[in-house]
């Protein structure tokens, strides 16, 4: 009956109640949304690479090196010589290497050239390995393996012929390598990493595309001159303890100036640059939440005058302070419950629509969960604050009803 009374009482004040619910829903959406995006981005960053100890590239900033080699953001300013790569690969501390070369694209999707080591050694997420949705992992003879998002967005299937464009900028290529089409040999299963938006070819194919004239007989002898410049090398060391020695080796013992980036450290450094956005959204969300809770409080408190008769009736009928508190708490919890559900539903819809609006953020949407530990704490805090506000209002209502006693007649 108290629930029925609470709902019916709210319906008589429906306009102010709806406004309060919308305000709280907006705050919940913003607050939980900022955390969901943060979690999505963090997981996206963390998920993109596993098992690689060092990324080596031409001299420059480690952040830039990590961004272009792993997240397809920006471009290398210089290339790394093949000879430098060979020196790294031959280092006794190195377990394996994955050389990569960027520089081409296909309809805004980047092309990454590498060798078979990519399929054998590259790991992401929880040490997961690339798997195929269709076809085979074959990079020979102008075969190409494409990411799941590429296949989905462009509608490519096994056997589709592809012309690559020159330039790695995420735009239509100015010049096309139209003389040499590639054929789709495999489509990767979704990884929720930038790999989903990548086309994979062999380093040899890249070299041929860029008019490195080859002679079958002299290929082995002049491998250094024939291979393209590399954008980066992913390196796995035999022991973590060798990391500092390896960094020294990169700094001091290379003919070409190189940069070594440790992925975990560099990701943290990148993240520190974005923290202010996250904090800003959270502060905005908390402020909005404060305003929204005030709206609920005002809605409850200002309704007290109009509810004097209701309170007086309850009091005369022997309603205890506990019953009055229950009534206001029920109203507040119904408001907050509806607002939280609405806010989270809109947030979830928003997250689901991200890939349709901003396709390059699809991994974030895929990884983002609207319920993080922070958002659950936020919801708990909202409900706790609501309970506090309900208690204050109920106490006021009880006191007023006591003062009104039997006298209130209107």
């Amino acid at each position: 009956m108290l629930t029925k009374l609470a709902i019916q009482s709210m319906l008589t004040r429906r306009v102010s109640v709806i406004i309060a619910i919308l305000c709280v829903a907006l705050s919940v959406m913003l607050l939980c949304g900022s955390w969901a995006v943060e979690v999505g981005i963090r997981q996206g960053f963390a998920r993109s690479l596993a098992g690689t100890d060092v990324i080596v590239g031409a001299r420059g900033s480690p952040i830039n090196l990590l961004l272009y080699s792993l997240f397809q953001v920006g471009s290398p300013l210089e290339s790394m010589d093949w000879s430098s790569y060979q020196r790294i690969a031959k280092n006794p501390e190195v377990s394996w290497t994955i050389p990569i070369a960027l520089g081409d694209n296909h309809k805004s999707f980047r092309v990454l050239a590498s060798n078979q080591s990519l399929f054998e050694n590259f790991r992401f997420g929880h040490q997961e390995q690339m798997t195929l949705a269709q076809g085979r992992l074959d990079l020979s003879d102008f075969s190409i393996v494409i990411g799941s998002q590429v296949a989905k967005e462009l509608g490519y299937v096994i056997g589709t012929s592809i012309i690559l464009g020159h330039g790695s900028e995420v735009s239509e290529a100015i010049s096309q390598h139209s003389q040499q089409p590639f054929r789709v040999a495999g489509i990767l299963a979704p990884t929720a990493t930038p790999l989903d938006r990548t086309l994979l070819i062999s380093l040899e194919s890249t070299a041929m595309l860029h008019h490195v004239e080859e002679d079958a007989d002299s290929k082995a002898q002049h491998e250094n001159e024939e291979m393209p410049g590399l954008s980066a090398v992913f390196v796995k060391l035999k022991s973590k303890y060798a990391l500092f020695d390896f960094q020294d080796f990169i700094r001091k013992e290379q003919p070409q100036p190189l940069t070594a980036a440790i992925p975990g450290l560099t990701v943290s450094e990148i993240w520190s640059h974005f923290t202010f956005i996250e904090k800003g959204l959270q502060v905005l969300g908390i402020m909005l939440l404060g305003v929204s809770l005030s709206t609920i409080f005002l809605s409850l408190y200002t309704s007290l005058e109009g509810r004097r008769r209701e309170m007086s009736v309850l009091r005369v009928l022997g309603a205890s302070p506990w019953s009055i508190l229950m009534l206001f708490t029920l109203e507040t919890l119904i408001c907050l419950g509806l607002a939280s559900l609405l806010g989270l539903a809109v947030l979830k819809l928003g997250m689901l629509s991200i890939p349709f609006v901003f396709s390059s953020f699809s991994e974030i949407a895929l990884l983002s969960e609207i319920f993080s530990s922070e958002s659950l704490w936020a919801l708990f805090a909202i409900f706790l604050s609501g309970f506090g506000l309900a208690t204050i209002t109920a106490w006021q209502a009880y006191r007023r009803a006591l003062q009104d006693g039997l006298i209130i007649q209107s």
Partner: protein
Amino acid sequence: MSSYKAKLPIHERPLVEIDNLVFSYKARAPILKLPRFTLNKSEHLFVKGPSGSGKSTLLGILTGILVPSQGCVHIFGENLGAMRPSERDRFRGKSIGYLAQMFNLIPFMSVVDNICLPIALHKMSFNSDLKTRVQRLMKELDIDSLAKQKVSHLSMGQQQRVAAARAFLLEPPLVVADEPTSSLDELNKNELMKCLFALADQSGSTLILASHDLSLTAPFPKILDMTAPLGQIEAQLC
């Protein structure tokens, strides 16, 4: 809860006993003084006096909503002033029915929900006895066809009958009515008075009714005149 005259068996205790009652709001001059006044079971009482004479204040004290500044009030031997507020709430809800001038109904609730409100507030189970009683009260008061209607859609007379049904629902030993007929026309007034006495007889309740309308005094065996100095009980033959 303290017990008053614990040595007396329950049937010998007065229903209402007031002893040197003084009431004032904060530090102001007293607005009500009653040196001694008792009311036995089934002695229906009429409280007369013009507006501002303290009738509603007295009813507030008798129902435990107001607490006397001095003196004490015992209802069925229980000292209301010695109870905690929550105990008084519970005592009032279960033992005292109340009817007000403007009916004190919740306008957005239906007739049946208004009548059943005390059941919910006192966490009683809505058993078949109570269901039957609700149906019987509505039938006797001729509001059974209005059960699902919102009380705000009813006439004054109908609303007062809903309030009467609620006041007698739990068959309280005491029913207090504060100017219950002041908003009603002559016909509805007489109808309501007949209903109140019939219901009081059925449930064995004692009725205390306060009004400035002296035409209502006839059926009451006792009258308390609030205009008389220090309050005086007039005995009246039925």
